[in-house]
Each structure stands twice: as structure tokens, then as C-alpha cells.
């Protein structure tokens, strides 16, 4: 909201509010339709300028809008720093041979009859280890696409399976930028957020895997292990040392996650372990350590799959993402300052009286934002800034908000053809978005499951840490992180609610 309660400042009407969105949407849709294929950075920047002009018409001063832009960016500064650190982490893991080791040993345990469910689980595991659905898709994804092709499976089905696993892993991973961003913009702790997500995402993943198992068992196919063997051999040939010991850094991520270390020191600590492993096992020196952290790993091997697998990481590789985050988050900040989304969707919040309605509205807004603004980051930021006070008023914990953002937002973004996410996945996997959409079971089941359980009053986290399990039992968890002021408001609201409807733990 505007800081100047001054003269002539007004909320834009619906037409004015929709102009910046229409500008962005028309550029991005025409880019998609006409196959120009440019990145969303500049269109977002143009939309920023348009939004600024609209704001000027509505009476906001330039400084107000700049402040709005900068405040929004500063809010996600922690996420921006974490994204840089995660780049370092991936770089050190690639050099240490940890990520290739995950792939190598993952490939060993996959059997053809159970290809789909196992691959899905593997994608999820690697997704957790990497914190990036994009990297999973670009490495395992391509490999599984070809394995799936040798088995005569529908490419849309394989792509959907990969995305289900990868998105789920991405969601769970404390390293993922979307996880960090959702927790960051909701003002909750990273691991509180992950804990809340487990209640909806894990059952959905189980359901998705059951579906894939049924499909996999039904269709019998011949399996060509050659592709997997080639990749395994290339990995073993390239790295000086390959043994299950290299998987330790991945396990360490889980340990650190359980220790509740703050995100930045945690990621840096694990990167340091990665460096240490690279020095001990792969013979890297100090100069290599600096290179792997800054520019990632780069090597030339004959196997094309192996090339795309190992040449990754580094702080530098994250700059593209950070660049987009800064402009996109800033665009959201300007829209917020001039009140555009409030003008378009603000009337919905007035009808919200129950947690279920709030979760539904949050999810819809998140999906609306991603579809119109083409970016999953905006899909987390705008709904959170619009509704976070409402969560406090209803006595809900902030991690309910962050979870809903991911249930609706993170999972929806690969399904929008012109979003950066959807365009990337369809290009890398060679399957059009609409073709894999019906098979992304995880992405479809999760929001529905979250809505149904919320409708029944289950899996909703309250500000004092209480929640009701899927079986209807009340449980007391640790108090989820929230800004102090918000926590006080929520606790007061919760006390009111509990006075009317007492619960027994």
C-alpha cells in the first residue's frame, strides 16, 4: 500500500489495473505464439514502466513507486543471497562427483517393470538433493525420456512422470529457490514451511506414484539398458573416484535440515563439505574450489547425457534467475504500490471468512498471477502480500500460507505454456506442455488434495503450532516462525476462535 496518504492518490480502476498485465501478457503470448522465444526479463521491465506510468496517473509519486519496487526486492533479498549460495553448492557437488554419484547409483536400482514409479521417486530424491526441478529435468529427465522411448511409452506420460517427481523434490528441498522464496515472502521459517508441505505433498506424491505403478505394471515393454549403461560408464570414466561415500553430502543436507540450521550457513556449510570431498576424492586444489563455487563444473566428455549432467552449477549460473527475480519481484512491488491486484481481485478477500475459503482464494490468485505474469516467483509474492494479514486475522500460521503458495503456484507454473517454467520444460524434454499436462499427476492431485483436506478442516496449521491430522486428531507441533507482530495478531485471533470452539489435544 502507498506510504503517502496524500492528495490525489487513488486506487486504479479495473481497466487501469489490467493494462500492465495485458501489456505483459500480450508480449509473452505473442512471443509464445510467434515462437520468438525471448526471456521474460525485458517484457517484465517494460511492464514495470507501464505500471509506473499508470501509477503516476493515479497520483503516486515516483519515489513511492521506486520504494515499492525496492521494498519488494529487499523482502526477497535473503532468497536472492540463498540462490547465489545454492549455485555454489551445485558447483561443489558436481566437482565432488556427488550429483553424478546420485545418478549413477540411481540408475543401478531401476528395473524396467517398475520404471515409472522408481524413476518418479528417483527424480524426487535428486530434486531434493539439488533443489531444482530444472536441473533434474535437464539431467535425469533427458535420460528417462530416452529410456521411456526404448520401452515404447507415451512421451507425454514419461515427461509428466519426470515433472511430478522433480516438482515434488523441488518443493521439498530446502535448497530450492521456490521453497526459499515461498517461506521468505510468507515470513515463516524455511523448515516450518517444509514441515507444513509434507502434510499435503507427501500423500499426493504417494497417490501419483500408485497411479504410475498401475500404468507401469499394465504395459509390458522391452527394456534397453544400453543408454543407462553408457551414462554410468561415462560417469565412472570421468571421475577419479566413484563410490557410495560420495553420497554423504546429500545425506548431510537431510541432517542439516533436521538440525534446523539457518538456510545460508547451512547451504554454505554443505558447499564447504562438497569442496572438501572434491579435494579429497577428485583431487581438486584451492584454485579449483574457487572456480567450482563461482563458475561451476565444466568438462568435456563424449557422452552427451553425461555432458549435460556434469556441466552445471556455480554462483554465475544463478545470475539469470536472480536478474529475473529482481525485475519480476519489483514489478509485483509496483503493482502492489499502485494497488492493481487489489483492484482486480480485492473484492474476493471481503467474502473470505473461513480457512478453507482463504486457502482457495490464495490458490486461485496464485494461479491467476502465474498465468498472467508468467512467473512462479510472482505467483508466490503477490498472493502472499495480498493475503498474509488475513491469515493472521484467522489465527492461521504463516506456513499454511507458504504451503498453499507452493501447492497452487509452484506446481502450476510448469503447466502454463508461456511461463518461463513451462517453456523450459517442454523445450528440454521435447514434449509440448499440453501433451504432458494430463500426466503430471502430482501437479494435478496436490492442489485438489490440499483443497479437499482444507475443506474438511484437516492439515491446517494454526499460529500456536496446533493442527489437525488427516485422521481428525489434534496435534501440537512447534510454533511456526512468523514476524513478531503478525504472530501476536494471529495468537489474539486464535484465542478468540478457541474460546468459541475449544479443542482437546
Amino acid at each position: 500500500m502507498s506510504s503517502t496518504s496524500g492528495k490525489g492518490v487513488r486506487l486504479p480502476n479495473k481497466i487501469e489495473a489490467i493494462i500492465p498485465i495485458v501489456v505483459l501478457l500480450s508480449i509473452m503470448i505473442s512471443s509464445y505464439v510467434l515462437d520468438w522465444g525471448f526471456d521474460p526479463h525485458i517484457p517484465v521491465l517494460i511492464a514495470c514502466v507501464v505500471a509506473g506510468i499508470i501509477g503516476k496517473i493515479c497520483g503516486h509519486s515516483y519515489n513511492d513507486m521506486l520504494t515499492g519496487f525496492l521494498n519488494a526486492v529487499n523482502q526477497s533479498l535473503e532468497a536472492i543471497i540463498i540462490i547465489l549460495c545454492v549455485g555454489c553448492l551445485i558447483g561443489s557437488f558436481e566437482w565432488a562427483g556427488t550429483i553424478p554419484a546420485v545418478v549413477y547409483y540411481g540408475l543401478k536400482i531401476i528395473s524396467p517393470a517398475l520404471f515409472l514409479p522408481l524413476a518418479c521417486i528417483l527424480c524426487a530424491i535428486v530434486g531434493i538433493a539439488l533443489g531444482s526441478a530444472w536441473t533434474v529435468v535437464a539431467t535425469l529427465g533427458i535420460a528417462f525420456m530416452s529410456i521411456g522411448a526404448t520401452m515404447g511409452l507415451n512421451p507425454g506420460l514419461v515427461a509428466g512422470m519426470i515433472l511430478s517427481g522433480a516438482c515434488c523434490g523441488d518443493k521439498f528441498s530446502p535448497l530450492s529457490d521456490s521453497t526459499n522464496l515461498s517461506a521468505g515472502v510468507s515470513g515463516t521459517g524455511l523448515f516450518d514451511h517444509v514441515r507444513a508441505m509434507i502434510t499435503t505433498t507427501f500423500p499426493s506424491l504417494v497417490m501419483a506414484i500408485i497411479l504410475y505403478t498401475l500404468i507401469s505394471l499394465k504395459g509390458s515393454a522391452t527394456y534397453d539398458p544400453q543408454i543407462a549403461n553408457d551414462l554410468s560408464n561415462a560417469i565412472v570414466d570421468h571421475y577419479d573416484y566413484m563410490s557410495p561415500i560420495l553420497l554423504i553430502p546429500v545425506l548431510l543436507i537431510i541432517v542439516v535440515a533436521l538440525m534446523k540450521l539457518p538456510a545460508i550457513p547451512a547451504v554454505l556449510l554443505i558447499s564447504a563439505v562438497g569442496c572438501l570431498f572434491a579435494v579429497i576424492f577428485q583431487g581438486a586444489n584451492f584454485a579449483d574450489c574457487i572456480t567450482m563455487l563461482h563458475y561451476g563444473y565444466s568438462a568435456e566428455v563424449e557422452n552427451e547425457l553425461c555432458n549435460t549432467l556434469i556441466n552445471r552449477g556455480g554462483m554465475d549460473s544463478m545470475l539469470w534467475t536472480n536478474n529475473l527475480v529482481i525485475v519480476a519481484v519489483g514489478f509485483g512491488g509496483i503493482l502492489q504500490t499502485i494497488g492493481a491486484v487489489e483492484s482486480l481481485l480485492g473484492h474476493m478477500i471481503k467474502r473470505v471468512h473461513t480457512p478453507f475459503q482463504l486457502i482457495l482464494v490464495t490458490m486461485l490468485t496464485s494461479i491467476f498471477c502465474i498465468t498472467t505474469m508468467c512467473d512462479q516467483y510472482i505467483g508466490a509474492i503477490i498472493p502472499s502480500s495480498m493475503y498474509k494479514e488475513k491469515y493472521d486475522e484467522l489465527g492461521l500460521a504463516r506456513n499454511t500460507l507458504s504451503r498453499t503458495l507452493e501447492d497452487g503456484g509452484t506446481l502450476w507454473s510448469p503447466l502454463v505454456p508461456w511461463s518461463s517454467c513451462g517453456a523450459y520444460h517442454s523445450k528440454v524434454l521435447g514434449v509440448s506442455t499440453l501433451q504432458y499436462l494430463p500426466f503430471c499427476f502430482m501437479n494435478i492431485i496436490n492442489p485438489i488434495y490440499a483443497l479437499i483436506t482444507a475443506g474438511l478442516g484437516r492439515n491446517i496449521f494454526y499460529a500456536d503450532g496446533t493442527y489437525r491430522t488427516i485422521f481428525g486428531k489434534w496435534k501440537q507441533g512447534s510454533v511456526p516462525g512468523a514476524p513478531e507482530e503478525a504472530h501476536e495478531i494471529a495468537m489474539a485471533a486464535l484465542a478468540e476462535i478457541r474460546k468459541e470452539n475449544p479443542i482437546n489435544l
Partner: protein
Amino acid sequence: MEKNTEQKKIPLWLALVPFACLIIVMLPSIIILGASPQIPLMMCTGITSLIGILVTGRKWEDIEKAMIDANASAMQANFIIMIVGCLIAAWMAGGIVPGLIYYGLKAFSPGIFLTCLPVICAIVSFSTGSAWTAAGTIGIASMGIAAGLGVPLPVAAGAIITGAQFGDKISPLSDSTNLAAGVTGVNLFDHVKHMLWTTIPSFTIAVCIFAVIGTRYNTDAADVSQINSICQTMQENFIITPWVFIAPLSVIMMIVFRIPAVPGMVFGTIVGVIFAFVQGADAETIMSQMIYGFDITTGNGMVDLLLNRGGMLEMMNTISLVICALAFGGALKSTGCIETITEVILGACKTRGSVMTANVISCIAMNFLTADQYMSIVIPSQMFKDIYAKLNLHPKNLSRLLEDSGTVTSGIVPWSTCGAFYYSTLGVSALFYFPYCFMAYITPIITLAIAFTGFTLTPLDTSKPIKTSVSEDM
């Protein structure tokens, strides 16, 4: 920092440990390994945070908050740097920079070679916002001419670096200019305007000295074929018209009329895009060039080097450096290192003149000790920011001083990133050309003169006079 009274004060030797780490990690990393400063900085940040947590009992949350606060103050500068990336790409695609370079080179006359050289290098580095680009292109070409004329190469190198640094310093497109304005929290255009007071006199003096030196050599018979071929390539690839001067003039007008930097740069970018359409580029190409940088293959390697610049992603490198450096600055502050050092400085330097002298010395020392010009801007800015406020000095005095003593002296340090770059491009080591880098001596001297006389210093609170010594408010 309300709980400061409970927290242990950090002793001076411990407060200097992060700086010692910086030197121990950074110097070999940059000189021997040729690394960028980001990762060494992160290591130093880690060590500083550990000192804070283990020795002085600070909480990680507070340290992280200080890092984020420090970065938040520079976020506007980061955003401007990004838009500058777009602007440079658009000005390249629009033929504006090629046009400016073309007319700059046309003005080149071999008869007054040494006088022209700094001026032309200044034009190129002003319009591209990069001293290195100027030295790596026109600089190399001029070294060839100088060799043909019998002008000593160190003299020519000195002239090139003088011009390149002058242009870089006063260009709002330059990353060091943006950085100095950003870390001190000064409006970019205010910073540029304030710098003119010290920079123009010192550049004029330097050019005069070169003019005098130039009379010793007969330079009429210069072989300017390389320069001519650059002009010709520009003409083949772009429509060169005097209209291109509209673009830099519009930026100068915005400086004069005090328009904020972001809309100013956005306007400049739009002008560039319009020119690019006139040059016949299509929207799709311009959009991707504004992200990834201008991209052209002319067949003339020097022209490619001159023009293939810009784009937001190129600027993200600077931004990632800013983020790392300010995280280090934030950690220093939250652990109490800055506080201790400030007290020591104030204990030793009571007057405005001596404080600013200490500041000049620390900037120059940072260039020698960390081998990186960005560090010479960022680290002293964090150390001296509060002291300037105590003297009722506007932060733009600080930002100007940082550039006057940090940016210009980086070239004379043989092992610094700048010194190494000039050595690799111009083929003359800083050990030989440093006597001829007149800017590097004249500007700090002018700055010191200002520090003691108070000429052109601006007060922070205009209703009160600038204090001449810190003890006045005690």
C-alpha cells in the same frame, strides 16, 4: 543494535582479523589464481560471522539482518546498474556508441597525438562506461601508432589510462561510478555532478602535461590505418549521423535537471531502442540483446571487442559482487569491527582534514592490499560512512573521495585487476607507466586540498555548518 551494552566490545586486533583475512585470501586468489573477488569475499564473510558468533556473542540472525540491511541500501544502485546494462546494449544496437566513437576518432589528429589520445580514450570510455573497453580497443590501436611514431610506450600507456579512467569515472554508465554512489546511498547523478569539481581540473592539468610532453616528438607522420579501419567498419555496419548526439545530450540534460536516475536511464534506453529500429534491428533481437548483450560480428576484431557489450546479465556480475561485498560489510558492522575501528580512527584523527586524509590513504591501501578497485570503494565506504555523518558531511563527499582516491589509483598497482588488465592489453607494466598516470596523483592531491580548505564540500544538514573537527559535538 540496542543490546550493544550487553555485548562484548571487540578489541582492535580482533577487529582487524577480517581485514587480514581479506588480504590473505584475496591477494593470492586474485594475483595468482586470477579469481574474481566474489568467493574470497564469501569466505571472509564466513570468518567474520564466526568471530561475531563465537567471540563477541552476536546471534546469526542479527548478522544476517545486517547483511541484508547493507544490501537493501544498495538495491537501487543494483537496479540502476541493470538498466544501464539494457541502455548500453540499446545504444550499441542503435549505433549511438559506434557514432560517438566514430566522431571521436575523426577528431583525431596525429599532429597533436599525445594531447588527443587521453581525450579520445575519455570519449570512448565515457560512452561505453568502461575504462577497460577503451584501453582494450582504442588503447591497443594507439599503442601501435605510438610505436610507429617513436613515442615511448609507457608515456602512451599513461595517456591512454588517464583518458580511460577519466571517462569511466564521470560516466553514469560505469559500474564503479554506480557502485560508489550505491554503497554511500547517493543519487547517481548528484554523485557525477559532484565529482566534476575535482575530476575536470585534474584531467585538464593531465592533458596539458601530455601536450607539453607531446611537443618533444614529431608525430605528423602517424600511421593511422588501424584507426581508419575502425571508422570504416563502423560506417559499414551502422548508419552514422550526427543525430546520435541526441542520446548522450539527453542524459546530460537529465543530470542538469536532476531527474532521478531510474527514469533517466529508462528514457535513455528508449531513445536507444528507437535508434536501433532506425538501424533496422527487429524487436526480438533487441529484447534478447538487452539481456545477453549486444552481439555483432564485423570481421574487425577490435570493433567486435568495442561493441559486444552490455545487457543485464553482464551487469549481474557486478551485482553479485556488490551483494557479496556488502554482506561482508554487514557482517563487519554487526560484529562490532567497524565500531572499534571507527573509534581508533577518531582517536587518531580529530579534524576533518585528517579524517579525509585517512580515508584517502585507506582507499589507496585497499588497492594495494586487495588488488581490486571495487574493494577500494566498498570497504572504506563502510568504514567511514558514520564518521562523515558525524562531521555533518553529505555522503556525496564520501562517494567522490572514494572515486578520487580509489578508482584512479587502481591502475598504478601492478598486481591489481586493473594493472594486470592494462599490462595484458597495452603490453606495458604498471612499473613503467605509473610515472605518467598523472590523474592518479593529481586527483588525490586536489581531494586533500579540498579536505583541508573545505572548498566544494557539501553539508549533510544544510542549516548547520560543516564541522572542522569531530570533538566539536562532544
